[in-house]
């Protein structure tokens, strides 16, 4: 290392703004910017291009270069969790549609027995997706409904069970306890079944996303993240920080409010969009 600073302060400051504004967090951003200061350039090399490549490599080094798919082993239970309004119910509908198109027999469980019209909302989605639904009366214990759903899966041979849960803030311990009970119930009624626990996160979420992912992971484990509303202007950089500190990968992304607006997460596309 020559210790010679080769990149202009002005360029570094522009890059810092892009990184921080992506919600990647000040610590990862500062680290990347500090590294860049001492970049050696070949004569005539396009500096901006080279720097972008370096940053891309750094971020891909954190999130991985390849998509991590959902489990391919059936029957499969998918538990959809996350804070209020993040896009869980919509994602349940979109995922149900995807598996239905793949000719899988799908059951969705309306385990948000708390919020106004939550069951009615999922009913409309299950019709769009062309799948079956199990629901309980309002105020039913969601774990009890999970038990009934599990029984139905065994009886009728469903290949995919997608469980919609009520939105909950991670700092509410009684609600996190309820989630633990739901997970235990899955284990009881369908022992040994393949289980994906998907944390649905709004791409507009800032640094609090780290605490969200941490507490949901500590409570019941998280096998993947669905990053929703990436059709907005937020870049979802918080997912990079979460991957670094908790090891949880983004598996799917939400790109709109329609039933087809769900895609596999592509690290390359994500990083390129982040640096635009």
């Amino acid at each position: 290392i020559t210790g010679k600073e080769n990149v202009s302060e002005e360029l570094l400051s522009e890059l810092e703004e892009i990184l921080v504004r992506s919600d990647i967090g000040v610590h990862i951003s500062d680290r990347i910017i500090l590294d860049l200061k001492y970049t050696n350039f070949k004569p005539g090399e396009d500096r901006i291009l080279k720097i972008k490549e370096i940053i891309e490599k750094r971020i891909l080094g954190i999130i991985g270069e390849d998509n991590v798919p959902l489990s391919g082993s059936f029957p499969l239970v998918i538990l959809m969790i996350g804070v209020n309004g993040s896009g869980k119910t919509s994602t349940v509908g979109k995922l149900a549609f995807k598996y239905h198109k793949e000719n899988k027999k799908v059951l969705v469980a309306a385990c948000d027995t708390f919020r106004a019209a939550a069951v009615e909302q999922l009913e409309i989605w299950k019709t769009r997706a062309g799948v079956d639904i199990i629901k309980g009366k309002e105020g039913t214990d969601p774990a009890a409904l999970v038990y009934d759903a599990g029984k139905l899966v065994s009886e009728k041979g469903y290949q995919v069970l997608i469980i919609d849960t009520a939105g909950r803030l991670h700092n509410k311990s009684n609600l996190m306890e309820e989630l633990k009970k739901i997970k235990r119930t899955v284990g009881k009624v369908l022992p040994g079944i393949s289980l994906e626990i998907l944390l649905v996160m709004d791409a507009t979420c800032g640094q609090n996303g780290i605490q969200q992912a941490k507490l949901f992971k500590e409570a019941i484990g998280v096998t993947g993240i669905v990053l929703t509303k990436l059709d907005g202007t937020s870049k979802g950089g918080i997912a990079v920080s979460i991957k670094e500190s908790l090891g949880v990968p983004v598996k799917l992304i939400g790109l709109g409010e329609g039933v087809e607006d769900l895609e596999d997460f592509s690290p390359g596309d994500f990083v390129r969009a982040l640096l635009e």
Partner: protein
Amino acid sequence: NLSNRLQDVTRKLLGQNKLSEKNIEDVLREIRVAFLEADVDYKVTKDFVDAIKVKALGQEVLVSVTPAQLVMKYVADEITHLLGDNISRIKFSDNAPTIIMMAGLQGTGKTTTTAKLALHLTKEGHRPLMVGLDIYRPAAQEQLKVLGASCNIPVYLEDSKNCLNIAKNSLKYARENNCDCVLLDTAGRLHIDEEMMNELKELKSGISPHEILLVVDSMTGQQAVAVAKEFNSLLGIDGVILTKLDGDARGGAALSLRTVVQRPIKFVGVGEKLEDLDSFYPDRMASRIIG
């Protein structure tokens, strides 16, 4: 948190009788990190830190070895001052009904907040009517209907594809039923969705709401300003309601919104029940942002 970090930084300053520029830089760095960790807008953070630096070098703030508490107090006071006064009320018009329109991105809490605000106004002696203008989201009208029933507040719904017509008919209904205010719940939408933003513009020019409130999730990151600016320039917003403050998000978006868009935060959502609507207290928000 900032308090501990500042203590570490200022401890190194003990025994020095004059602050160097480097000492001040150390303090400013900690404040910058705290702000960005709290989701305060990048440029708002930069301006705030630059302003403190000018004052520090101008000897107004860090005039001698300042203990961490004094710096903390200074920063907290500055943020409190920037957050403006507590203006937690709706300005009622002399021509009934007063029309209040809720707007914002998807999932921020508009429908729930519409009902919370209606309940709050009822307790203040008003007679609100809630109107379901979200004709897109599955079961959105049903959601508002259930919320209205739970607190005995009338809800106007219509099976129509034209929001402006529904809104106009609801005003007629309000007058016929002696309601002195109308709360319009609208569909969540992206600030970059031209068609949906036009729907709001047409609603505004068609029924002239007295108050347009932007409903913002308190855990919003760096895009808070871009979103608010767009809603403000296309529609004009009169105030902000910050939701889900019962979570542990630091809520830096509050400072960014107030300083850039310069509209007051009128209320905060602090839970899922309809009673969970509080006045906005700038000093409480300030200490929350600093962590």
